[in-house]
């Protein structure tokens, strides 16, 4: 049942696009172009990200992760997840599977959310692009203000979730 729903929506959407082209419906065609633009980005980068996740999974042992970004890792662990996140690329939803992997390898709650924050706002490939369009001053300021704020969010999430049965699940 759940699987049927899972595949029905994408199927209906593709059917809609197909009919739009068949009957030269300009609204449908425009939506299809938008879809292609997003899909292209996803299909180019996500498989790479997942290969990275797979390799990370088989090569990096749990003890290593636990020691460096786990329960008692402190500021060095925070610095490490920020560094890790800033070297990656792609939209936020690409970070969720990686966060899951970090979690099952023993990363603590705080660092999971700091990782998500860093991944979404201070990726180095993205910042170079931002500097090109919006200037060095703006990009640097935005990054420097954002950094402490998502570290605070990480601490807040940890405080709130500690003791509750929080876990990152595999979908």
């Amino acid at each position, binding site marked *: 049942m759940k699987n049927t729903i*899972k595949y029905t*929506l*994408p199927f209906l*959407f593709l059917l809609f696009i197909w009919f739009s082209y068949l009957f030269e419906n300009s*609204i449908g065609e*425009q*939506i*299809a172009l*938008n879809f292609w*633009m*997003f*899909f292209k980005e*996803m299909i*180019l980068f996500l*498989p*790479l*990200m*997942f*290969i*990275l*996740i*797979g*390799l990370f*999974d*088989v*090569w990096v042992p749990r003890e290593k992760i636990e020691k460096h970004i786990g329960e008692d890792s402190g500021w060095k662990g925070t610095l490490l997840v920020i560094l890790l996140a800033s*070297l990656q*690329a792609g*939209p*936020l*939803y690409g970070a*969720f*599977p990686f966060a*899951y992997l970090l979690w099952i390898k023993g990363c603590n709650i705080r660092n999971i959310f700091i990782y998500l*924050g860093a991944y*979404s*706002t201070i990726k*180095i*490939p*993205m910042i170079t*692009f*931002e500097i*090109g*369009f*919006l200037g060095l001053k*703006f990009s640097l*300021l*935005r990054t420097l*203000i*954002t950094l402490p*704020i*998502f570290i605070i*969010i990480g601490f807040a*999430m940890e405080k*709130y*979730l500690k003791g509750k049965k*929080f876990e990152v*699940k*595999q*979908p």
Partner: protein
Amino acid sequence: MIGLTIVVFVLLAVSLLADTQKTIKGVTRGLKMFLKLLPALVTMLALVSIMFFIVPNDTLASLIGKGSGIKGYFIAAVIGSVSLIPGFIAFPLCKILINNGVEYSTVAIFITTLTMVGILTLPVEAKFFGWKVSILRNVLSFVAAIAIGIIMIFLL
């Protein structure tokens, strides 16, 4: 993107040389996870492309332009939250917004919510973190984005 591609291929090559069996296991595991997530992602992107069609760029500029004040900030934050625009389109778009008289602080709010808050990706996020935690993270990020914008006003 090119950077990531090179890094992944170099790591893949090193991994293959070190242990072929282990590498195959890792790559299969990663791609299996990807295929499992794919239908949810396609659904999400379909919704995004419909949204993107409904809200065109020039409407955006007039809603959050000069003189729109606090309301403009709020609208920028909401639009950023419900949009899912790839970086290579978002930054040129921001440049256009600035040329049309939108302030830098508003753009900062827009970028922050765009990247940190994802209403449309919420169903995907909830698969990993559960609904309650995902909503909480998004609300905190939304508030943070507005704070970032306000700090930017004083610094720029």
